[in-house]
Structure formats: C-alpha cells, structure tokens
C-alpha cells in the first residue's frame, strides 16, 4: 500500500442550506493511512463536511474523488459507502445484542455466518468488550455503547473511518480510556480516519494532521504541533488554547526579531513587521514563568515583565494564574510551585517568557 496515495480529494465543495452557505472547501486531500482531525466550534461545518464526504449529503457544488473516481452525484450508490464507516456522537445502536450490533455492517454486506462470528469476536476483543457480546445494547453504559458503536464500524474493516465527535458526550475518564484505545486501534489497523472534535487534546493525541474549521471553511491546516504553536489568526489561536492573544504595535525589526510594545511594555519576538503596524501575538500559558525576584541575570529569557497577581484559579494538578502586566497575561503554575513561591492575589512577581515562545500574527493594520 502506498503510504502517500491520495484516498479522497475534494474540489470547490460548497453546501448551501436554506440560502446560507454552510460549507466552502476549495480543496482538501486525505492521504491513505493518515488521521486527519477537524477541529472547530459547534456549527463550524465539521459534521456537514463528514456527511458530504461519506456521500450521505449531496454538495451544492464541487466534487469529491475517491481514488480518482468522482463519487458525488451518485446518491443511491452504496458501493462507495461500503468502503467507509462512520461513527456519530450518539452510539445509535440497534435494539439487539452487542454481538448483533457489531455484526450489522457485515450482515448488510451478506458475509457468511462463520466469518461474521470470527470478525465480530476479534473486533469485540480489540475494544475490550468481548464479555458484553450477549448483552442487550439498551443495557450498556455510555462508554460501553460508544465502544460497541466503534467496534461496529471497525468490524467491517473500512478503508476509511469518519468519526463525528464520538466522545463528546462521555465523562472525562471514559473519554480518556476510549481515546487511548482508539489511538492504539488506529495504529494497529492503519485505518485512514477523519476525526471531528472540538477537543484540541483529543486531536493532538490522535491525528497526523489537523484542520481548524470556522464558518464552514478550513482556516488552517497542518501538523497538530504546528497549528497549536503557530496559529494563522486570532480565531485559531483562541481555539487551540492560546489563552494569551495580545494586541500591540511593532516598533522595529532586526535580525529576524521584532520589538513590539503593548501597554508601555516591550516584547521581543521572532518575526518581521513594519514600524507602527498593529500586530497580534500569542503566548501559551504554559510557556510563561513566574518568579518573585527578577531573573534578569540568571536567564537568557528576553521578555521579563513586572506584574501583580490578579486572580488564582485552581485547575486540579495546576493553577491558572491571571497576571496584570499593564495588559492581562495568563500563566499555568503547578500547585507545588504555587506553595513554594508563597503566591497569592496581589503578590508582585515577574512574568518571563522566551522570545521564541511568542507567535506573531500580522493583521496588516497600521495604527500610526
């Protein structure tokens, strides 16, 4: 199997509903064996894109090619649909046993009874639900039901699987367990997958490539780490957890570094912008360090800003510390560090972050 082979190719795809364009994808390629995650808020068009790719929704314009063959416009065709599987947010199980549910896709394909039994048992084992085989689907917990739904999809050994927020309605521990299992199974089977989610961590752990959607469009796509650390615009930045999205003005650029000002503070960051240009820069909270003494002489960190603690919000293993630097800044601190530094609201501290931890977004606006 050619690892770089194009499985799906989308061209100029639009979907219009009730006179409103809900999807506009000029181009999208899905390669064999890759896991692509679609992230975005509710209503971004993720589900619509998946339904269109599964040929369950006809696009208004454009075409979808599967291994070079145009599949759009052939609504009654189940031949294409038999090469894929889809899992929805709700498990959508049939009123039957777990075994019968997992066997459903195979029965639809008219596969022999013995083979169905073997494949169902193997898949149930893969998802650790072999002991549930004879249980009624109506008597399953949320996690067990979604495992059954995933097993039903994988039992048919699809070439590609579309997952539409499959874990969205599960509690966090169940979700974590299922995400880990799905990652293992995707790796083991080498199934090409598209995962729609609004959980960036889920996308990060499962996918090879990430596409951020908003308003029916893909606003950025790339390797997950790239998208997370180098968001293309403010929307992407806020959606991928860049809690510090700040607006300032470029002062000067030299040697690939830019000096910018925000609320009387100078910030150095990699990039180029014209003097006076309005710029947006993003810093992940985990990249901000807090100290009670000025670390100026002991660190190579370029940006050290005096601040006072405005609010400390416990977040379990760590705390979210809201700082007032003349502009708002959020940092994450472990509970241990918080105790060691004796920090509380009102404490004067220094916030520091490396120049390379700051990501520049040029808005193109000039303010002076």
């Amino acid at each position, binding site marked *: 199997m050619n690892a770089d082979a194009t499985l799906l190719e989308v061209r100029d795809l639009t979907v219009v509903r009730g006179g409103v364009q809900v999807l506009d994808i000029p181009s999208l390629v899905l390669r064999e064996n890759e896991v692509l995650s679609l992230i975005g808020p509710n209503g971004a068009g993720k589900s619509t894109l998946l339904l269109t790719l599964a040929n*369950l929704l006809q696009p208004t314009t454009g075409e979808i090619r599967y291994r070079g063959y145009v599949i759009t416009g052939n609504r009654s065709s*189940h031949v294409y*649909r038999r090469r894929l599987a889809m899992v929805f947010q*709700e498990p959508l199980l049939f009123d039957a046993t777990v075994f019968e549910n997992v066997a459903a896709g195979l029965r639809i394909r008219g596969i022999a009874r013995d083979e169905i039994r073997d494949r169902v048992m193997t898949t149930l084992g893969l998802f650790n639900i072999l002991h549930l085989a004879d249980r*009624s689907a109506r008597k399953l917990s949320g996690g067990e039901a979604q495992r059954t739904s995933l097993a039903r999809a994988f039992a048919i050994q699809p070439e590609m699987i579309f997952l539409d927020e499959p874990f969205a309605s599960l509690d966090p521990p169940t979700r974590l367990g299922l995400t880990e299992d799905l990652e293992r199974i995707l790796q083991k089977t080498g199934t090409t997958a598209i995962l729609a989610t609004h959980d960036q961590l889920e996308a990060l752990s499962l996918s090879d490539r990430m596409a951020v959607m908003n308003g029916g469009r893909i606003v950025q796509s790339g390797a997950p780490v790239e998208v997370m650390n180098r968001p293309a615009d403010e929307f992407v930045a806020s959606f991928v957890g860049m809690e510090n999205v700040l607006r300032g003005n470029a002062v000067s650029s030299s040697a690939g570094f830019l000096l910018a000002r925000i609320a009387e503070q100078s910030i150095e960051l990699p990039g180029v912008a014209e003097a006076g240009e309005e710029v947006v820069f993003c810093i992940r909270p985990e990249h901000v360090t807090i100290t009670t003494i000025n670390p100026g002489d002991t660190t190579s960190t370029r940006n050290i800003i005096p601040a006072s603690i405005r609010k400390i919000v416990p977040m379990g293993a760590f705390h979210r510390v809201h700082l007032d630097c003349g502009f708002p800044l959020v940092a994450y601190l472990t509970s241990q560090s918080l105790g060691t530094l004796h920090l509380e609201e009102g404490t004067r501290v220094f916030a520091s972050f490396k120049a390379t931890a700051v990501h520049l977004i040029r808005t193109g606006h000039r303010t002076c």
Partner: protein
Amino acid sequence: MELIFEGIAKAVALLASLDPEVLKITWLSLKVSGIATFISLLLGISSGTLLALADFPGKRLLVSIVNTGMGLPPVVVGLFVTIFLWRNGPFGFLDILYTPAAMILAQAVIATPIVMGITVASIQNLPPNLKLQILALGATRWQMVRILIKEARLPLLAGVMAGFGGVISEVGASIMVGGNIKGYTRVLTTATVMETGRGNFDVAIALSLILLVVCFGINYILTRIQQRERPR
C-alpha cells in the same frame, strides 16, 4: 342484575356446549378481521414508512389527514364501500357486496390509517441520525427501510393491536356491507346487535363475552411478544 347473571349463565352454557352457530360466527369474525388487519399491515406499514421518510411540501398536511383517518367512523366507511360496491357503483362489477370479501375490504379501509398513523409516529420517533448511520454501514435504501421497520417493531406491534382491536369490535361497516346474513356474513358484533334488538339479551351477552375474550386473547399474545422483545 338478574338479566345479566342469566346472560352470563347462558353464555357459559353456549360456550361449554360448543354451539356450532356460535363457533361459526366467532371463526368468521376472526377470519374477516384477521385478513383485514393483515392487509392493513401491508398497506399501512409500507405507506407509513414511506411517508415518515419522505420529505416533500405538504407532508404535515398529509400526516394530519392520516391521523384524522385513524378515527374514521365505521358507518361512514360502510356507507362509501357500499356505494362503491353497489350494483351501479364504480366497483359493482366485482359483485362482492354482502359477502365476507366486502367486510374485509371495509375493515381494511378502517384499519389501514390506524396502522399507517402508528407507523409514521414509530419511524419518526427513531433517532434522526439512525437512517444516516444505517446508510453509513453500507446499506442500500431498501436494506435501510427494512432495518428501520425492524427497529420500530415494538411500537408497530401496538399498531397491530390497535388495528385488529378497531376492526373486530366495529359493527357499522360490517352490518352495512355484509348484511348480517346468517351462516355467511354474520359476525360477533352484528349478531350481538341483532340479538339485542330481538330482546335475546342472554345470547347477546354470551356473544359479547366471546368478543371480549377474543380481543383479550389476541392482545394478550401480542403484549407478551412485545414485552418479551423489550430487552432487559
């Protein structure tokens, strides 16, 4: 009260003696209403599923009409079936008026909207994405419809009960299109009406009891199936 007790006693005697006349009437009731229900299931489930799944302007109006049809007065059905089957009527050439076939036809007309209305509601009550999930599993349209009907089987059993209950207990249409001919088109309801009219309350009570037992028996069996099917 004495009249009622006498009636019950007579009924028990009639049942115990396996009166051939009563057995014949009971068997015809079951046959006519059973066939009519079967026809209404074929027509009602298929058209109800189609109506539930299709999307077209005026669908709500059509569903409202079907729901109204669920309460179609049997005498009205009887009247129109009689007119249609009358010697000069559009289907007079069939020459089936005052035969069990006409009764089956009239009862099927009564039961079909009941089954259809319950089918529409049952299919529409399934999760909206279930249809897409079945198609995504690789089903053809026909397989999808079959699986959806299977998924709605428990509420559909209620449709069977309502349809059968509706026709075995109706009297207006049966008497109009069947004519209550002894040994030919006389069923439990029409015989009960006739015996009451003659003042033979004991026989009427006996026939009513048989009707009740038949209705209960059929519904009991269907309920058992429904409850057994419901996963525990």
